[in-house]
């Protein structure tokens, strides 16, 4: 299945801004996080198709997945 992955801010460093990637059916968000080697503690928010999501959620063909890093400085 194809999933569009979108990365925000520092998550793009050494990776990409947005890409359509191929995964086996039923791949979970957590598996994508591990594949992209994003440290779990740096993720502030995950969205799938504009809705909040958790790492255990399974993806479907055509999903749009976005990862937002923790930004908290003032």
């Amino acid at each position, binding site marked *: 299945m194809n999933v569009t992955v979108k990365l*925000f*801010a*520092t998550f793009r460093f050494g990776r990409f*801004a947005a890409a359509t990637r191929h995964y086996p059916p039923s791949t979970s968000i957590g598996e994508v996080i591990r594949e992209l080697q994003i440290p*779990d*503690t*740096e*993720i*502030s*928010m*995950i*969205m799938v198709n*504009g*809705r*909040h999501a958790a790492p255990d959620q399974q993806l479907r063909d055509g999903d749009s997945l*976005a990862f*937002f*890093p*923790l*930004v*908290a*400085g*003032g």
Partner: protein
Amino acid sequence: MEELRRYLAGEAKDGLISWATQIEAAARFRVSLARVEETALDLAILPARYQRNRQAISVGQQLKLFRGRVAVVGCGGLGGYVIEELSRLGVGTIIAIDPDFFEEHNLNRQLLSSPARLGQAKVEAAAARIAEINSAVTLVPVQAAYGTENAVELFQDVDVVVDALDSVPTRLALADSCDGLGLPLVHGAIGGWFGQVTTQFPGDRTIRLLYDRWVEGKGLEQQMGNPSFTPAVIAGIQTAEVCKLLMGTGDTLRNRQLCINLLTMEFEEVELSSPDCAIGQ
């Protein structure tokens, strides 16, 4: 005071009164500059310092800004710019809340800091700055940390709260306090080349959504620091949100997060809806 009103009406030219006239009126009628400004605005006379606000902001809206009370929580990178902009805008009462003192590593970005002010309380520097640039505006310095226990006292009679903090747990507590007190909260956060802004209304709980996965620690600002322009950009957007909330005009970033990437110059809007909304509850 009828005499003051007559005096201001008589001194107005093209609907404007000068700063010198405001000072003269305050001395002559033994009232505060704030009182003079409010009286003028109530007569639809605009203090000349705001003449370049005109068209964007009407005299009636300027009066709303003057009667506005805004609490700025955190007077560092974001808070310093927000306070400066609110006071130049003519927001009548600004409550500046921060327990800290200026340190050398603040100088790269914190507007209210300077070598001469190192070691000075940030809220004290804010009061001095506002007294210098717009003494018709009241800045209430509160040299204390915001906490859930003092929220009711700090935000008494406040219209809008600005989140200019630098820690996730305190931001979450502030979001909950504002939710409980029925106050809109303008959230801004920065790290390196990146920033985010959203405006939370009571019941929205959108700031909890932003930090949905947070467990502990700081964000990417810890590795990337904060250059001078990032707080300026984010604070400017936060101030525009406050301005609209006080005037009751325009569209705010309610249920929307603006993600700003100054490295690639992308401003991206992300819709924020709670998981409950997503399943139609």
